[in-house]
């Protein structure tokens, strides 16, 4: 029988990285132990369903294989019970008879908003232990025999006659804050009062929310949103304004947390709240045996459940991956500083060993689980090993142009790194603004792509510089005598199977054979070599009758815009001798059009359509039919035509949704099932220069699409939309497969952020001047 025996263990944070590993070990190594999982309820998903999903994760794969699927289901049903409760907000109702509590739940971020950090790390801890105290008190005499016997400890309801379960409190080695030198395994030495800090932190949100609603602040947010999103329509602007306000609130709350942590001597709010959580645990759990386990940086598994297992990317991994992808050239770190990494399975072993060794109530035990004390890894050594790994196993380039060669890494002092970053960020901001104000073309799009890459790199740098400063610069050693003592108290067999002496870690082996392969596996799968032959191209479109493919006209299907359309009609109609006059007249109005276009596409269309006033409708149509058809087709992207036809072949409804007048659209009509275009208002055969109905632009098109798809019972989530301009955003957002075609700056940025497909359609379409010249030449040719 395992040491935990027939006990009943409560586990929090079981969906997290450490929690999963603990659960797996409990299932695999402690067959008699009953497990209670405390999970946050999620609307619409039952507890059983959550458990089923949890047990489907890779960490349980080996165990499931070993016992067999059916047996695994059976074991899960028999041994695991799930309690839904949000301990960050309420004191949970807990079952009786708990023998141990392993509290793994914690915020995953280092820089969360202050109230979230306090709620999860501190309020959650307080509520959990409060709940345990109540359950123990309510138990009366019928339970509570699992913990270390004997009463003791002072004060607190429910204490005295009955000791509670053994509380195994998972903290972090970095609660030591900015202390240097050797950190002993003992209570933290600080005077911060957790109750006061908790109250202030929770109140901070209200203050910040109130501030964010001041008119000046809202006006500024709206101004900024307008500048960026005006073309996408008023709803997009409103959404962006509110998004900005929320972002401001979050940022501000993050600042609150960071500033408070630093003022008290902790690097960030994560470590501050973990430290205060320890203190709260010590105070509340005075009747229960309490063990505080402080792991260092927890990384992928050394051996169990299998070498290299990891769930998501942990602290050091994004840096390692950024480096492997050639995106990291500088790191704000001291090369000879220690980085205290410990594989997750050693932490789990330590935790479960601690769980079987409860101290006396009121006299908490402390354990550091890390490698720094006896098997230190310096930043320089880590760099060399990781570099060695990537030199031998480089990552494939995303564009399929071979493999990425890792660069030399420069270590910068925190100060220098920060200064450099700040300059770069300022330059980046300026460059972005300049680029967005330029008209979109191939060159600016190339620049923008480059800028986007640089921006990603810069963000990576900034994030890690902010985050890791404290973790890789502190020259500090966490002594692990208690932990080592516990390890040595195990039998030889136990030590072999689930020991946790970090001195056994062979860093080259761990980093190069276990960890790096583990974290790069998913990248290699995604970026694996493309099938040879043929271009990657678009994947085949699924055959469906209930979806649509919606196309914008100008810039998406045809390389042209309204101004050109007008020019065609006028110039094709005129003899070349009259061109200068037509051009001059247009040039005079051009500034007005451009201004209108900047403001609003609908306004632009209206300003523009004035020019058709007085035109004879029949003549205009005849002209468009005879002279424009070739020109429109000449300006259509071949890829656009092919894509439309592919959609049709797959049974999709093809829709052309444009503000342009229907004259221009006529030659393409045969490609579409549905054409929605503007119609010129005609009175007595003459155009009035107005439209029959308001032009469909921006959000009006989205509204039309919503109505139409409802009427036709089409599935928008399975549909496609193609657009080139930021004003197409509302339409693109409505469908499941948005495609930005030759996007303008704003749409490009938006598409990149939303991971929309971006396609570049090009072909032998002539420039405007050349098209006209060709049209004239064809007429004039002998």
């Amino acid at each position: 029988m395992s040491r935990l025996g027939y006990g009943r263990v409560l586990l929090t944070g079981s969906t997290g990285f450490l929690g999963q590993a603990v659960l797996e070990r409990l299932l695999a190594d402690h067959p008699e132990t009953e497990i209670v999982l405390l999970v946050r309820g999620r609307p619409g998903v039952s507890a059983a369903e959550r458990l089923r999903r949890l047990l489907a994760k890779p960490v349980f794969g080996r165990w499931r294989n070993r016992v067999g699927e059916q047996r695994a289901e059976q074991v899960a049903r028999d041994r695991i019970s799930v309690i839904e409760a949000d301990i960050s907000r309420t004191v949970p109702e807990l079952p009786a008879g708990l023998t141990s509590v392993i509290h793994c739940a914690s915020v995953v971020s280092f820089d969360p908003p202050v109230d979230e950090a306090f709620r999860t790390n501190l309020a959650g801890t307080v509520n959990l232990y409060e709940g345990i105290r109540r359950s123990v008190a309510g138990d009366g005499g019928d339970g509570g025999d699992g913990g270390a016997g004997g009463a003791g400890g002072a004060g607190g309801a429910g204490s005295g006659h009955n000791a509670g379960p053994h509380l195994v409190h998972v903290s972090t080695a970095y609660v030591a804050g900015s202390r240097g030198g050797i950190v002993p395994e003992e209570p933290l030495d600080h005077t911060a009062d957790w109750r006061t800090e908790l109250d202030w932190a929770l109140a901070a949100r209200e203050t910040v929310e109130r501030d964010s609603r001041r008119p000046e602040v809202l006006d500024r947010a709206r101004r900024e949103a307008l500048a960026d999103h005006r073309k996408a329509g008023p709803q997009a602007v409103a959404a962006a304004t509110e998004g900005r306000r929320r972002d401001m609130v979050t940022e501000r709350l993050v600042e609150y947390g960071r500033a408070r942590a630093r003022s008290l001597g902790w690097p960030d709010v994560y470590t501050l709240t973990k430290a205060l959580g320890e203190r709260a645990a010590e105070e509340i759990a005075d009747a229960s045996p309490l063990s505080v386990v402080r792991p260092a940086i927890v990384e992928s598994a050394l051996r169990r459940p299998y070498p290299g297992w990891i769930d998501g990317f942990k602290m050091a991994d994004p840096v390692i991956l950024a480096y492997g992808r050639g995106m990291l050239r500088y790191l704000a770190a001291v090369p000879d500083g220690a980085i205290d990494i410990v594989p997750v399975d050693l932490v789990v072993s330590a935790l479960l060993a601690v769980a079987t060794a409860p101290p006396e109530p009121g006299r908490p035990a402390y354990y550091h689980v890390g490698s720094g004390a006896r098997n230190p890894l310096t930043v320089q050594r880590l760099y060399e090993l990781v570099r060695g790994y990537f030199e031998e196993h480089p990552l494939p380039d995303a564009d399929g142009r071979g493999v990425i060669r890792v660069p030399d890494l420069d270590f910068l002092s925190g100060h220098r790194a920060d200064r450099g970053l700040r300059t770069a960020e300022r330059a980046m901001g300026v460059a972005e603004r300049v680029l967005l104000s330029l008209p979109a073309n191939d060159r600016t799009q190339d620049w923008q792509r480059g800028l986007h890459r640089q921006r990603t790199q810069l963000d990576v740098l900034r994030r890690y510089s902010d985050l890791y400063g404290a973790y890789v610069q502190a020259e500090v050693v966490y002594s692990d005598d208690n932990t080592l003592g516990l390890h040595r108290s195990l039998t030889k067999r136990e030590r072999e199977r689930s020991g946790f002496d970090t001195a056994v870690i062979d860093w080259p082996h761990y980093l190069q054979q276990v960890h790096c392969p583990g974290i790069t596996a998913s990248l290699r799968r995604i970026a694996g070599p493309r099938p040879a032959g043929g271009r990657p191209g678009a994947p085949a479109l699924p055959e469906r009758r209930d979806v649509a493919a919606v196309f914008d006209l100008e810039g998406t299907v045809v390389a042209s815009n309204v101004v050109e359309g007008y020019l065609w009609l006028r110039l094709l109609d005129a003899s070349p001798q009259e061109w200068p006059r037509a051009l001059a007249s247009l040039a005079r109005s051009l500034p007005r059009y451009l201004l209108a276009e900047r403001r609003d596409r609908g306004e632009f269309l209206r300003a523009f359509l004035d020019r058709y006033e007085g035109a004879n409708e029949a003549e205009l149509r005849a002209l468009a039919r005879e002279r424009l058809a070739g020109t429109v087709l000449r300006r259509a992207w071949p890829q656009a035509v092919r894509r439309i036809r592919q959609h049709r072949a797959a049974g999709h409804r093809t829709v052309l949704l444009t503000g342009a007048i229907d004259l221009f659209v006529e030659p393409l009509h045969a490609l579409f099932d549905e054409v929605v275009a503007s119609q010129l208002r005609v009175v007595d055969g003459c155009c009035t220069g107005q439209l029959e109905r308001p032009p469909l632009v921006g959000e009006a098109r989205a509204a039309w699409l919503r109505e139409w798809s409802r009427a036709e019972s089409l599935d928008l989530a399975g549909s496609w939309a193609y657009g080139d301009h930021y004003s197409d955003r509302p339409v693109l957002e409505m469908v499941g497969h948005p495609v930005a075609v030759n996007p303008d700056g704003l749409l490009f940025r938006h598409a990149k952020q939303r991971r929309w497909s971006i396609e570049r359609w090009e072909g032998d379409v002539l420039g405007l001047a050349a098209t006209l010249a060709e049209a004239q030449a064809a007429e004039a040719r002998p």
Partner: protein
Amino acid sequence: MSRPGLVLEVDERTPPVLVHEGEGFRLERFPLGTRVVYPPDPLPGIRDVEAAIRDALLNPLGSEPLPELLYPGMRLTIVFDDLSIPLPPMQAPDIRQRIIEQVLEMAAAKGIDDVELIAANSLHRRMTAAEIKHIVGERVFASFWPERLRNHDAEDPDDMMLLGRTKHGEHVEINRRAAESDLLVYVNVNLVAMSGGSKSVAVGLASYRSLRHHHNVDTLRHSRSFNDPEHSAMHHSYDRMHELLIKHVRVFTIETTMNNETFPAQFSFLNKREWEWSLRDQGAFLAAKGANELAPAKVRRRIWQGVRAPYRPTGVHAGATTEVHPHTLANIHRQQLTEVHGQSDVLLFGLPYICPYNVNSVMNPILVFSLGLGYYFNMYRGAPLVREGGVLIMYHPMPVEFHPVHHPSYIDFYEEVLAQTTDQATIESKFEEQYATDPWYIHLYRSSHAYHGVHPFYMWYWGAHAMEHLGDVICVGANRRAAARLGMRAASTLADALEMASDTVGHSPSISYLHSPPLTLADVR
């Protein structure tokens, strides 16, 4: 008497030889011993063309004089070759204009009202008004356009008529107006030995249903060459169809041949043999080459597409098609045939900027393929200039450029079909039907100026015989991606190409260079 064709063996004293490469040309020094095959010098043109035409119409071969075939109240249709011949388009007045004007005068003299003119553009693109005007001339155009002068529309179900099937089961379906006429006068320009004769009506006015019987891989593999009608399965099919259709409609054919004065004065050096270039020719060459390379791509294209050939007629023959055509072929041979002894391991030629399907348009990679492996490779009689398993080295930059209005189905053929396979039989069985019946291509063929959806397939089949015969195809100066897509290899220089070819033909292969244009038909003995 002009000088006959010539085979020059390159030795130390041979000057570099001119090679066409798309919208450009270069002088190349070929390996010693290379045989350069030149066409005969230009034949003298007919002095009085109008008189020659009148003479042909009044004294036809195997037919009554034209005026005797005309009578009041009859239905007369004049059909003429489209802009795919001659190449480059000829300087005005076009020979077809001169003939049509005389035919119309005779018809008017007989008081015929019901006259229509139809361009025999088959599945080619509709010509623009300006292009038709260039062929028929201002006067005819003004009187007949657009109601009684039009492009043939092979996809107009109301305007097509199935005349029957040949003894081989081939459908003969042609333009209804033409088929229902009392007399069909066909006005032809014969540039190569492939054209004219039975082909004129049977192909020029036909539909996809009819064309598929001879425009297919199997027939083309057995047309060796298609410039030698006697040995061309394709022409045998034309003949069967022609035989059937003249049972339904009386055809009066007028065929003409041109000499080979292909390039106008400023490019006259292109018509001459290099060692005979005068100082002025050399200057013109340098100036033209310099200017051509400096010019922006669009200007360069406009200049080349603006070239109008100063061709002069060498023969006008009229009457029954089968009687007329042998005279035409004889004239073509007089102008183009050069005797060559034996095949060689390597065949070289430079591809010019134009082929029948990119007049006023863009020469896309598929057209380059058909010009090289189709037209040029088949410029032989007897046996191919290159031995079986030998290597073809051609020159063309082969940019990936398409004219989206003229060649929409070519773009898709290039991106969708050739990306999967280059095998003709597979392409034919798997894709042809789909492209040929695609409503969008049909729509563009009928209402825009697009080649029919099936046309790129024909261009691909045109190379069927060459692809079976050749061991390797290398294109000097070609865009690598395009060449690979077409199943060829690209080389930067001739030296590299010969190095690449050495795997197939060894290090000292025998080489023939077909010096063309002006067009040269090799008579390989």
